[in-house]
């Protein structure tokens, strides 16, 4: 990752319409990022054919293909091997968080999240990853 590159495009995958809307509004309005919202792994894979995001947010509990599986599928593509990925989850019990940390991710954001803090949380992870 180049240390000069600025975080711009974020891909957000979550099956909950309202959470997607809130996240999109927060990140676009408050952070000035460009957000691509997808409701499933499959729709994200379609978007990834045409877009190359800088950062990916993935909900953990999703139907059919869940967050960790989605991560694995995306990571298989060479160009997304090193892209920063953060899990967003409402499964916040210690054992669940510990299990998620074993995955190839750059952070975990717990739900409910504060829209005002979401941007700074993501930016921090981006900066750490770029350093």
């Amino acid at each position, binding site marked *: 990752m180049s240390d000069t590159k600025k975080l711009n495009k974020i891909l957000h995958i979550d099956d909950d319409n309202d959470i997607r809307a809130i996240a999109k509004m927060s990140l676009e309005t408050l952070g000035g990022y460009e957000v691509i919202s997808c409701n499933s792994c499959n729709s994200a894979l379609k978007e990834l054919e045409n877009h190359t995001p800088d950062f990916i947010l993935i909900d953990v*509990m*999703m139907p059919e293909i869940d967050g960790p599986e989605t991560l694995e599928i995306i990571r298989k593509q060479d160009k997304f091997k090193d892209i920063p990925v953060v899990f967003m989850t409402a499964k916040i019990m210690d054992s669940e968080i510990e299990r998620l940390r074993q995955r190839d991710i750059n952070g975990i954001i717990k739900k409910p999240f504060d*829209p005002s803090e979401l941007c700074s949380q993501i930016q921090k992870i981006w900066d750490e990853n770029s350093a």
Partner: protein
Amino acid sequence: MDQEERYKLRIEREKKARKEAERLLQEKARELFTSNEELKKSKDNLQEENERRTYDLIRVQKLAKIASWRWNLKKNTIIWSTEMDFVLELDPNTYTNKARAYLKKCLPDERKRIKEFFYNIISKSSNNISDNELIIEHTIVFHQGKQKNLRVKCECIYDENKELEIMLGTVQDITEHVDYRNQLNKRVKELEKLHEELVKAQIQADLENQRKSEFLSTVNHELRTPLTSIHGALELIKMMTPNDTKRKVDELIDIAYRNSHRLKFLVNDILDTEKIDSDNIKFNFKKYLITDLINEAVELNKPYAQKYNVDFKITGTIPEIYINADKDRFFQIMSNLLSNAAKYSHEGDKVDISAYLKLNRLVISITDYGLGMPEEFKDRIFTKFAQADNSDSREKEGTGLGLYLTQKMVEKHNGKVSFKTKEGKGTAFFVHLPYEEK
């Protein structure tokens, strides 16, 4: 010395010699007597010792309840100790053939087994027989069902041609031992059963804990999901500037409202689930005319029909019978089934509601012609949060507890719920309830 003197001297010597001979004779006679006495005494001692040994042997055999026997195969004679008569409870004056007297005490199956046991020993050569083959345990029976357990042990003596000449051994009364062994086995089995039950209980408790932990985790997740939208929407509204559009504000208010509604239902269903699981839910049963209940339930759920643009249609005639029901819970059951039917119908579809009597039960059926259920979902529709990982359901505002609660509440009404479904064709739910004639 003259002749007479010599004669006198000779007589004197002869007298002396005779005297000495008499003395020696007396001494020998005394010795012989003593020796004879000692011999007699020794004989007596030997006899006494022999008697004592025999007595001891009998006493020891009695104490140990062990009889001894000896079977001379060449002469075909059997001798056995007195204890055998005690063990077999036989009067020695009432039998002549020992083998027959022994076998007579056994039931036919045991008799056969004992004969086979001896045939086996006789048929084998000295180096071809194992220790186990020289021991047999069997039962003998007496009048009035009394029985004893005996253990027979054998030893074989072979002649110079290596042919079996003599068999000797013991017969021990092991009734007490067998009783003890049986009691011990029974106790062991009881303990094994107890252990098995404990293991089962432990597994059950572990499963229950796991289920509780999973439930807690899912509840946590399900509560946090709408809360994320509510919290997020409200915070975004709070941060809005006068430049933000009304449309954006309205959208956020809608999100907050929709999710607070979802949260309300979720909290109610979680509380009901907890109450019903801990059997802490009170049902106020009263007798109601089923026609009234169904009509009222359909009327109450009309907003769902309107929301999803479907038509709730009562088909056929509802029988004029009574059911014992908790009215509120009955409406909750109907509401869960009717709202599900509406949610999963295609727009403009109808939902058929009917009631009929079948096999001494009232059956209320609610049929939609909508999405139907996928095959893999059928087995778990009545489990908690069965649809938690189903996107369709989430979009359709389910709490994931509705059908679980429906089934539990119907069971509290002494009824059951069944269903038929076909993906793409629709689903029919049937509530089977006991009823009373008018």
